Structures are given as C-alpha cells and as structure tokens.
C-alpha cells in the first residue's frame, strides 16, 4: 500500500466528513475497509497538512484535521493551472511543459495539409 494511495483515501474521508476529524476518527473510518496503523494515519495527516491540502487545528490535546478546500475547488484549481499555462505571454516562463499550445487558424490549416499527405509546410505561404 503506497503512501500516495493512502493520502487519497484519507482525503476522501476528510471530504466526506461534515466536521473536522481527529486522527482517531480518520483511523476508525479507514479501519472499516483495511488495516492501517494509527501512527501511519497520523503521518499521512501531517503530510497532507504540510502540503496545504488539509488544515490542522488544535482542540485541547487533540489535533483536528479537515480538508482545506473541497474536492471541486481543488479540481478546478488543477484544471485552470493545467490549461492556464497554455499559450499567452506566460507560456515561455511556464512551470509545465505542454505538448502543444493553442494553434492559430493558419497553423491548423498547415497541419491539415501535412496530414492529408499534401505539400510540405515549407512551401506553404
């Protein structure tokens, strides 16, 4: 069982829970399906908090964990980021390297010509 999979499962519990959860809560919720050590759950929650995916608050002695954003918000951020780096002035300084950016109509035309086995784009205007 990789830590990555466990992180996803723990986040699923946090998203599903209406209230912040203690390590014990998460451990119990996960325990319904599989056998995970309490300390492992604690480590995973701390990792998630360090990454900013979960937020950690203190209630007396216990640490309470909740998802810092909803799954939908995170998915939207990820999508915006994945698509936002395409094209534009920022493309050259981008954190992500895209296979291809937005093509102009001209570029699309030349591509179609090349695909249909036509002339080399060198000879195109």
């Amino acid at each position, binding site marked *: 069982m990789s830590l*990555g999979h466990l*992180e*996803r499962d723990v*986040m699923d519990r946090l998203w599903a829970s209406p209230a912040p959860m203690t390590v014990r809560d998460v451990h119990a919720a996960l325990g319904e399906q599989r056998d995970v050590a309490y300390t492992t759950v604690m480590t995973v929650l701390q990792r998630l908090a360090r*990454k*900013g*995916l979960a937020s950690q608050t203190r209630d007396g002695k216990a640490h309470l964990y909740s998802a810092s954003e909803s*799954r939908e918000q*995170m*998915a939207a*951020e*990820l*999508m915006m*980021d*994945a*698509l936002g*780096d*395409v*094209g*534009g*002035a920022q*493309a*050259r*300084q981008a*954190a*992500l*390297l*895209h*296979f*291809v*950016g*937005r*093509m*102009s*109509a*001209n*570029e*699309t035309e*030349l*591509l*179609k010509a*090349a*695909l249909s086995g036509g002339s*080399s*784009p*060198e000879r*195109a*205007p």
Partner: protein
Amino acid sequence: MTTAAWLWLLAITLIWPVPAVLARARWLLTVPRPAVVLWQAVAVSALLAVFGASLATIQALVFSLLLPDAAVRAGERPASLSGIDATGALHLAIAAGLLVLTVVALVKLNYVGIQVARRLRRHRSRHRDLVDLLAGTGMPDAHDIRVLSSGETAYAYCLPGRDARVVISDAALRDLTPEQVAAVIEHERAHLRARHDLLLEFFTVLYEAAGRRAGTQAALEQSAVLVELLADDAARRLHGPQPLIAALATLGSSTALESPASPTPLTGQKSAGSSDKAEVTGLGVLPRLRRLVDAPVSVAPPGLAAAVYAGALALIAVPTGALALPWLLTTWHAVR
C-alpha cells in the same frame, strides 16, 4: 581600442544584433542540439562581456588618474590618491557609480534567479500534489503517468523536477490512437530526461532580470521551440513522425476550442505584433511540423552542426583569450 571598449562592443553585439539574427535564422532550427548550445554560449558570453566591460572601465578610470599610461606599461606602482584635480574626481565618481551599478546588477541577477527557482518549484510542487490527489494512474506499468479527467479538453504536459510526472487528459486518451499516445508520452519523457526545464529556467532568469529586451526574449522563445524539436526527435526515433503530426493536430485544435474566439492573424499579415503572437501561442508548431515532415537528417546541411558547435565554443574562448586574459595579466603586472 582599449579592452573596455572592445568588451562593451562585444556586450552590445551579443545583447542586441546577435539574438535578433539568430532568432530569424531558419537554418538554426535544423540543428536543434547545437543551436541550444549556441544560445547558451551567447548568453554566457554576453554576461561575461557586460561584467568584464564594467570592471575594465572602472579599472581604466582609476588607473588613469593614479598614474600615466607610460607608468602602467612599465609596471610601476600607482601613485597615492593625493593631488587629484577636478577631472580626476569626476573620473573617480564615474568609476564609483559604475561599480555600484555592477554590484546592483549582480545582486539583481542572483535575486531573480532565486525568485524564479522558488516560484517554479512551489508552483510545480502544488500542481504535483493536486495531480497525485485527483488524477488517476490510468495506464499500467507507468508510475510517472497521471490521467486527468477534464471534460472535452484534450491535452498533455509534463511536470518537471524531482518526482516528475507526465499528465494526459482522458479526452486525449480517447481522441488519440494508442500509438499517438505513446508518441506524446515519449515526447514528454524526453523533456524530463534531458531536463529541458532547467534550460528554460536559465533563460527565464535572464529574461526577467534583464527585462524584455530583444536578446533575452528571443533566447527564451527560441530555446522553448528548440526543446520541442528535440523532444519530437526523441519521440520520432521510436514512433516515426506520423503519430506526432496527428497528435499535434488533435491536441492543438482541441485546446484551441477553449480559447476565446479571437481573430487569428492571417498568413499574409506580417505585422510584428500579430505574427509574433501566433508563433508564441502555437509553441513553435510550424518549425516542429517542418522538421517532422522532412527527415531531420536531410534538412540540415552537412557540417552545419559542427559549425554551430564551433561558433558556440568561439563565443566563449575568443573573448576570454583575446581580451580577458591579456587584460588580467597587464592589470596584475601594474598592481604588483
């Protein structure tokens, strides 16, 4: 001319005309690997020339008022600072001002370097966390590949750095044939293997530190195109050119649907703004297409690669040997 004058001339040449000419040189795109080396040599040589020219100017100004030229040539010790006239004081002030500017430029270069490195790594780290959390692993035997479900948008990209990922959207998996998917993934893995991100990061730092002047912008844009050509070369070695051309068509036009319906520049319009923009948004699609349609070996004239490598070497070696070393030696003799 003095050493300082030669170095200023070299610096200005490397900052403005050389990048402008190289950016328009189509033949350079036929030899992407040597071209990448050449662009780096231009950048390093320009940096050395700028800072060398500043130091040489400061040294010349200070020496000129401490002792006459003849004394410098004879290797005599500089006189004391006493007995400086008004012109001398002005020279000293210019030298001090230039020294401050040089130090500020060096500090800025380092500061921007750190800022860019932190920004890129923070951005990638956050993106990787989200991808690992939300994307599926999708494909068997490929631990570095993540599949994002994002509706109708077909795209693929790589997330460089330690713990790198290749991300492909489920729409791309649906729209591309397995062979095309394999070619796209090989293209992205070539970026990751060769650490093309570090090359682009280097030119991003120069671009942001030196402003959007011709040289830095041309270097950044051209190196971005060149690494795409190199990644295409790696992918076509395994899969041939056709899957890549088809994938370019599918992914390029799919992403275009997302963009607002803006008037795209027509072929004939060569006004600087619009044609540049098309080139930027397409991430060098036309040069890639040219190279994919023609065989990469046949498009480069014989000996061009060696000539470009030699030019890159000369850019570093000739100024160092002909200007910097003699200047350092005479300065050393004069001070000793």
